[in-house]
């Protein structure tokens, strides 16, 4: 059996805080698009996905405060209980920060499974809150979004890492 499946670590440039902020705003925008019908159910929670990405890859840069505030914004925009997304996102951020070394040790495709589990847990927290508050179970399609989000993880990782890649040395032959 082979245990050295971890990908070769590359040395990346430091990430700019403005870039993190821009990706978070973009994720919020994607979440706010008027999704309806089938798309509504398979829509991944982009904010959760991007928060998780930064917590895993830059655990010192994105903290709980940002995740929590983004959660409150989602609560207002969605008309859900105030604090529902905030609680779920802070727990997600905690999981991301605590597990960041472990997740980074896997290859991109193996990371997908880890990410799906974390996002499903995120969904479960919100489901628990709403059912405690007297809501009905909306059906198992509620969890579809997290699987789609898991599939989006590899392209997202490659995309968000692009600005940090070192440029090939022009003097090099």
């Amino acid at each position, binding site marked *: 059996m082979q245990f050295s499946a971890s990908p070769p670590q590359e040395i990346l440039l430091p990430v700019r805080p403005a870039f993190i902020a821009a990706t978070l*705003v973009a994720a*919020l*925008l*994607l*979440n*706010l*698009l*008027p*999704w*309806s019908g089938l798309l*509504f*159910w398979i*829509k991944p929670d982009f904010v959760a996905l991007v928060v998780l990405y930064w917590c895993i890859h830059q655990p*010192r840069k994105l*903290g*709980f*405060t940002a*995740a*929590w505030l983004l*959660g*409150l*914004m989602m*609560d*207002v*925009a*969605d*008309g*859900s*209980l*105030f*604090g*529902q997304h*905030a*609680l779920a996102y*802070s*727990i997600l*951020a*905690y999981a991301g*920060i*605590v597990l960041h070394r472990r997740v980074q040790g896997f290859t991109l495709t193996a990371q997908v499974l880890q990410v799906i589990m974390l996002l499903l847990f995120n969904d479960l927290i919100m489901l628990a*809150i*709403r059912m405690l*508050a*007297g*809501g*009905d179970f*909306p059906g198992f399609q*509620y969890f579809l979004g997290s699987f789609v989000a898991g599939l989006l993880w590899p392209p997202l990782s490659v995309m968000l890492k692009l600005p940090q890649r070192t440029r090939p040395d022009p003097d090099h032959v």
Partner: protein
Amino acid sequence: MEYQPPPFFKTGPSPLARLLIFSLLSFVLLFTDARFKYLESLRHVFSVAVYPLQRIATAPLAIANRASEFFVTHSSLRSENARLTQQILGNTILLQQHKSLLTENVHLRELFDARERTKIHSTLAEILYAARDPFTRKIIIDKGFQQDIRSGQPVIDHIGVIGQVTRVYPWLSEVTLITDKGQVVPVQNMRNGLRSILTGTGADGVLELKFIPLNADFKNGDQLVTSGIDGVYPPGLPIAEVTDVERNSAYLFARIRCKPLAGVNNYGQVLVVRQDSEAPERPAEETKPQRSKKPKRSG
């Protein structure tokens, strides 16, 4: 005091400590929001921050709609024009009858010294999007506190009632649809005037009449209109149609399912209805009220 080496890396409180702090904060918010309604002003602060993003996110759809409006063909415009002219002709007759009936009604009411029917004003609003909360049925419309929308006002489209404004932000408001679980509208059967209470079930397109005795006269196809006894919904607005009556003597009440008339899930324009009614004086409270603030759902 014991000597401590300077921390090499300053990291602040541990992740677990932070998690506890933020979870506690969220729980406080959740509890206050679910049990009491004290957090509306805090919600407003966040809504002002999110508002530009909401408008930007819904802009592409609006622009696409405008663009497709621009590229209509001449023939489709002509046929639509012809259809509308015909419709207007048909409506004119009804409208004239309505006018004469209205004046007649006013005279009769004066004769009987009955209270005048309240006047109804309405504000046109556009549906921005359906709220992405799978647990409730809500839509967001583009008029808010600044346009004199108030919590509790009914919302209708060109066919009938679709819901009620339940939360108002400075420039947006949330409308809870009648299909939402726990949304209640007092209704009346148009055929025989029987009053009842219509509640949403949480499922799309299914409403239920509650607490109807087994022998009550409800049939498939009965049209239901708002009864207006709540003082929230103006009387006589079409709302639903009975689709299924199940009388099982094992139960105390009949199980009556209805379907909403208005396009509850369609995008488009809606009217927010405001009636300036002076509600009759509330009867004096017999006992001291335990709670000063009651939830403002219609009842």
